[in-house]
């Protein structure tokens, strides 16, 4: 019941905010967004799931199944539940939305009730994506997410907002169609009568894929895998499907960027984890070298692109491409370290990249420019923001005791342990990406934050308001907490990853004790 209650509260909140006058919308939206946060925290405390949501062995937390449509051979149901992978993302969505709403108080001055209603509606859709276990239900939420983001970029965005909004919408919709077709081919070939994800997963993993329209089972699995990988890859985004991302980020208002980088990109990696890698591990294994190369190209190329940018927001946007490459690498490694590290990195990157975008947003609110060349030495004028920005950048580089470190170290461990051809070489190349990250972030910060003060802008650089820096401080604290005690999530993540692995053995234990014993 908890999931439905949180979903209903969020949706209701969106409607209330929509009807509220602009004057109160901002504060009201924040107050109402605390409800799902409280619900999420309570669920996290009560969380009692074991195993993976898509396997029959485990048990789910807060599971509900209600029939939705029963029609000939199609059975669609409202099936929601959380396991160790979805719970952290569920919680991340609630927390990040609340903070993003606070970060909107300064920049968003027009059509406020519509803005905050869309933010809450997006939260509702995101929570649905992470909780849904019926393909149809999941797809409905998945598409729901696009609509508020389309409007957020298109209405409140920067000068090229219309172009960016349409590009985002077209890219992700075509991707959805490709993915949908790929998945449907897989479902039709299994003969499963429902679209229940656990049932489909178990059938596919049990090898119940039969020839369909003259295609052999192997071909079907390959086609489905590739179609879904491309479909989700656009969302992640992986090179070469990343070109919508910088446009969307640069034009989007800060709170929308925070949500886009913090949670929306994770939908892609979460879906890759759930669909491609959980359902079709054998195809993933046979394609592993190619996927590994795709991952490393994303890491290196994304970082190189970030290195070439002058706009702070573009730098952070391209660095997301780079960081998401690590997640793909971890998934491709397909062992305990790789998978759990990738899942952890989703949450960690969600917090850190959200934080980075917020920092850039706060600087932009004051300076009205984001160009590296326009600003210099603003650390004295905006001490708290600058401090958090520096800390966040170190988190991005994977400084120990920050959330990014825990995710990346496991991904690299997993990559080194992986058995596919060239795994070690690819991992080593990917690790080199960190150096580039350090390069562009430190370089940008050195120029913008430190050195002699200079601001090529007509506006005064003044310290940000309390409500602007408060979410920054909260987020950096969360990043440190998660980096110091990764077991908050790591235990449940590994529990969910464990059933996916062929050699169900003591690996889970050893990783859990890596931090459990040491700290």
């Amino acid at each position: 019941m908890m999931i439905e209650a949180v979903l209903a509260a969020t949706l209701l909140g969106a409607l209330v905010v929509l009807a509220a006058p602009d004057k109160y919308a901002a504060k009201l939206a924040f107050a109402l967004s605390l409800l799902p946060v409280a619900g999420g925290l309570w669920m996290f405390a009560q969380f009692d799931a074991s195993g993976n949501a898509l396997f029959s062995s485990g048990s789910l937390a807060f599971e509900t199944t209600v029939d939705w449509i029963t029609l000939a051979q199609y059975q669609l149901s409202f099936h929601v539940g959380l396991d160790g992978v979805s719970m952290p993302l569920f919680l991340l969505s609630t927390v990040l939305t609340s903070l993003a709403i606070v970060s909107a108080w300064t920049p968003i001055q027009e059509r406020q009730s519509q803005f905050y209603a869309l933010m809450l509606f997006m939260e509702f859709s995101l929570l649905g994506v992470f909780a849904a276990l019926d393909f149809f239900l999941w797809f409905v939420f998945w598409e729901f997410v696009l609509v508020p983001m389309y409007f957020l970029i298109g209405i409140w965005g920067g000068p090229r907002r219309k172009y960016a909004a349409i590009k985002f919408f077209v890219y992700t919709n075509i991707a959805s169609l490709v993915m949908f077709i790929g998945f449907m081919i897989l479902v039709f070939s299994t003969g499963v009568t429902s679209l229940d994800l656990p049932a489909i997963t178990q059938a596919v993993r049990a090898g119940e894929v039969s020839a369909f329209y003259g295609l052999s089972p192997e071909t079907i699995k390959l086609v489905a895998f590739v179609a879904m990988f491309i479909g989700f890859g656009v969302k992640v985004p992986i090179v070469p499907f990343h070109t919508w991302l910088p446009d969307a980020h640069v034009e989007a208002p800060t709170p929308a960027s925070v949500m886009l980088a913090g949670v929306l990109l994770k939908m892609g990696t979460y879906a890759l984890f759930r669909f491609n890698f959980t359902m079709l591990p054998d195809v993933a294994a046979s394609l592993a070298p190619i996927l590994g190369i795709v991952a490393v190209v994303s890491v290196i190329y994304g970082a190189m692109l970030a290195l070439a940018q002058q706009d702070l927001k573009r730098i952070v946007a391209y660095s997301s491409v780079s960081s998401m490459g690590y997640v793909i690498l971890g998934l491709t490694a397909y062992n305990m370290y790789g998978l759990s590290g990738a899942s952890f990195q989703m949450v960690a990157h969600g917090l850190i990249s959200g934080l980075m975008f917020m920092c850039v947003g706060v600087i932009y609110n004051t300076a009205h420019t984001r160009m590296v060349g326009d600003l210099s030495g603003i650390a004295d004028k905006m001490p708290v923001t600058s401090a958090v920005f520096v800390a966040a950048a170190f988190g991005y580089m994977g400084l120990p005791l920050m959330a990014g470190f825990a995710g990346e170290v496991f991904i690299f461990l997993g990559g080194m342990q992986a058995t596919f051809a060239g795994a070690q070489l690819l991992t080593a190349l990917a690790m080199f990406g960190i150096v580039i990250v350090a390069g562009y972030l430190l370089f940008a910060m050195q120029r913008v934050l430190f050195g002699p003060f200079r601001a090529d802008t007509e506006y005064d650089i003044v310290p940000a308001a309390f409500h602007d820096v408060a979410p920054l401080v909260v987020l950096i604290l969360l990043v440190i907490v998660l980096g110091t005690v990764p077991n908050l999530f790591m235990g449940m993540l590994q529990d969910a990853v464990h059933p996916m692995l062929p050699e169900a053995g003591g690996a889970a234990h050893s990783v859990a004790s890596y931090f459990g014993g040491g700290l």
Partner: protein
Amino acid sequence: MAELPALTPQYIFAVTALVLLLVDIVAPESRKNSLLAGIAATGSLLVAGVSAWFLAAGSGQYSFTQFGDALVVDGMSLFFTLVFGVVTTLVVVGSYDYVRDEPYLAEYYALVTLAATGMSLMASSNSLGVAFVSLELASLPSYVLVAYLKKNKGSVEAGLKYFLIGALSSAILVYGISLVYATTGALIFSEVASQVAGTPLVGVLGIGVLMVAGGVAFKTASVPFHFWAPEAYEGAPAPISAFISSASKAAGFALAFRIFVVAFPLDALSSIGVDWAMLFAVLAVVTMTVGNFAAATQENVKRMLAYSSVGHAGYVLIGLAALSGDADNLVLGASMMHLLVYGFMNTGAFLFIALAEHWGVGRTFEDYNGLAKQAPVACLAMTVFMFSLAGLPIGAGFLSKYFLFAGAVSAGFWWLAAVAAVNSALSLFYYSRVVKAVWFEDPSGDFTIDHTPTGLYAAVVAAAVATVLLLFAFDPVATTAVDAAAALLT
């Protein structure tokens, strides 16, 4: 309690039309519009209610024939009278504001309900003769209604074009019927069916079937008889465009489903070389492609919707095209579902146009720029319609489209589903132009919206709410449609 006659929905429509004319004589001039609109809305809402009640009570598993088998009431006819009831209600409520200052109000509402009577008879007709008469009963009031704004050149021109093409296609249909009668000696559908297999005059029968298909194509605005649609929809008063593009199209399909499934059974006809499923497969592909590509190039929103309506006729035609496969119930049922959902979203979209015309906003995409700043609720509703028409899961349009395409795939027509899916993806381009215009663009002119017409707003919002709610409560619709299709096919 006395038992209601099976044809109650049709009777209610007819009686409503007569009552409207009667009230016109006695009603005071000042309150005439609200009184007439109220009666018409009550009558059509009653039709929808009774149809829904009959469907629920009988679970779609019955069939009553009336008047010597000339009319039949079964799950499918009730499903369609439900659609007509709903669409007519929305149209009448929307018209309340739209035609307020026009002359001949009683005639307007009476013609709408008379056309609805004709449509509901089309859905029930079980004989080629009744089919033709009821089709004319639906068509003739429509011609007049399209030309209702008789001081408006566009409206009159549209009415004339609609009438000329309508007259031509009626002639084709009636000639086709005569050829079918010549070869089979029967008009009742089931008797025609029993005669077709043994006929020596295969060529004559084939031409007859082709001509009947042509008559149906006119009514459903399918290629090659779709040319009237953009003209008529653009020129007609917007509520009438909504009425014709939703209800009249559904009526055409209701008739087509029954004639082709019952009177021209595919097994018997394809064994003698008259494979109409192939014909409809080709028509479906051409219709959806023509409709979508033409819609993508329009600058006028109403015209874009007109072509999109042609495109949707193409999707629904899949229901007939895929009948030669092995998932007949599902694919035919899915066509019916799509028509019901389409009834809400397309009617709503045209009523939004009616709202814009009522405010004096122009007709092109540019004229709609920034409308959301002044009318956010109506624009939100329009956004729902556009995304649902495009097949995004914002409304039930996604589900009905999905079942239609999935039905085609299970029937073995994956290429038909593929063409439809590509078309559907393309359609997002032009539907989202409206969304972009109203929400993203800055207003180009400086008009202000000074009032909110209650009736139009109520109709638009009701249609939007229904479109969204159907997404969650789709099970009864889907089950009823598939049961009705199954009953028809046995």
